[in-house]
């Protein structure tokens, strides 16, 4: 009867359908990265990848651990709120291996000028000087000690 002939067609169709489904499923499992969709429409592991990046700036607490003398020296000075790495640069590697990586001293004048050169836009309350007028070509640290810049 007709019904039986149809069954073969349906079987082939069904087999094709299941095969297609399997191919789709396997392809999807292969192509969609692991952890994609667990937190949203993105790879959740990407967050861990970003977090895994090593730090370059050690942070003020790490500096103060060893250099408490400088922290004390700065305690009463105008520069007390400035982080060490603001002038000395990123030193996480030095904090990890203090003996092996000795940081270089920053070159004073260009650094001082970044903050203290008279410049349109700086608040009037902020201490600035016309560099040429103030010191000529003299290095700033001849008179001002960077950790306590007030001339005593």
């Amino acid at each position, binding site marked *: *009867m007709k*019904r*039986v002939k*149809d*069954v*073969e067609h*349906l*079987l082939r169709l*069904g087999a094709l*359908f*299941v095969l297609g*489904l399997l191919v789709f*499923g396997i392809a*999807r*499992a292969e192509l*969609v*990265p*692991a*952890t*994609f*969709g*667990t*937190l*949203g*429409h*993105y*790879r*959740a*592991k*990407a*967050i*861990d*990848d*970003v*977090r895994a*990046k*090593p*730090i*370059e*700036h050690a*942070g*003020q607490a790490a500096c103060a651990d060893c250099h408490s003398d400088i922290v004390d020296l700065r305690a009463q000075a105008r520069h007390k*709120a*400035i*982080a060490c*790495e*603001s002038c000395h*640069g*990123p030193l996480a590697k030095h904090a990890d291996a203090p003996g092996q990586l000795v940081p270089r001293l920053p070159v004073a004048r260009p650094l001082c*000028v*970044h*903050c203290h*050169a*008279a*410049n*349109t*836009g*700086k*608040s009037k309350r*902020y201490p600035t000087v016309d560099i040429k007028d103030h010191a000529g070509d003299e290095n700033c640290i001849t008179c001002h000690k960077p950790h306590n810049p007030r001339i005593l």
Partner: protein
Amino acid sequence: MSAASERQRVNHANGAGPEGAPASERVGGSGGAKPPGLIDRRDFLIIGTKMFVMTSVALAAFENVLAGTPEAAASYNTADHWWAMVIDIEKCIGSGHCVKACKLENNVVDEPMYFRTWVERYHVNPLDMDHPIVDSPNGGMDGFPETYPDATTTGKTFFVPKLCNHCADSPCTQVCPVGATFRTNDGVVLIDKDYCLGCRYCVQACPYGCRYIDPRTNTADKCTLCYHRITKGLKPACCEVCPTGARQIADLKNPKDPVHEFLRTHQIQVLKPQMATGAKTYYNGLDGSVR
């Protein structure tokens, strides 16, 4: 051995169905009995449905096995934080330390035009308030020239540090065709550099111009709010080095964060509020001329 099972065995040996009738009698037969080796529509549908369901379940299970469980971060729970940045324009002196520290911390290409954060200087002439003069030589990293050539005595000048606004409803993540950029549960917009195609849609979509294509990897790049630092209890590099404290990282879900007192006592604005991006870089003293 009983007679019934004996008969069944024989029937199987003959290639006939369990009911014992020869196949030839059943072909084209109507009603109850099935032809051997063939199934009717009802059985086909039942078997097909079962196979479909089982395949789907197996695939779903397989996928979960492949994905594994996301690694639980030790002592950092994204649900406990909502990160933002607070910038006090009145304190910014344009030293450019933030720009330099950002580049060193995040290994940003050391050339102009590639910045995760940069400082703009605005000069507003009172006779033409709608058209401020803006400059940002090398992102402000090397400082600013002393004055504008045409700076008048009546105008005002101020610095505006800029960075990714880490929008709660960020346009950049919405346009990404592959899900390579996203906002985390703690409110930081990040980029999956392994998955980014470099199609540049997000660079176009950001209303604040905070994204660029890293020429080394040809993928999108931007400020991560130093996610590798803030999740370890450190400040972002720019906030760490800011000599005047003009930049502050803010955890809005932490009631002990001093930023709450600052937000209570100051007039806070975001850039381009009309874009409804849910920007989370909050500015104190932001002038209306800032774009």
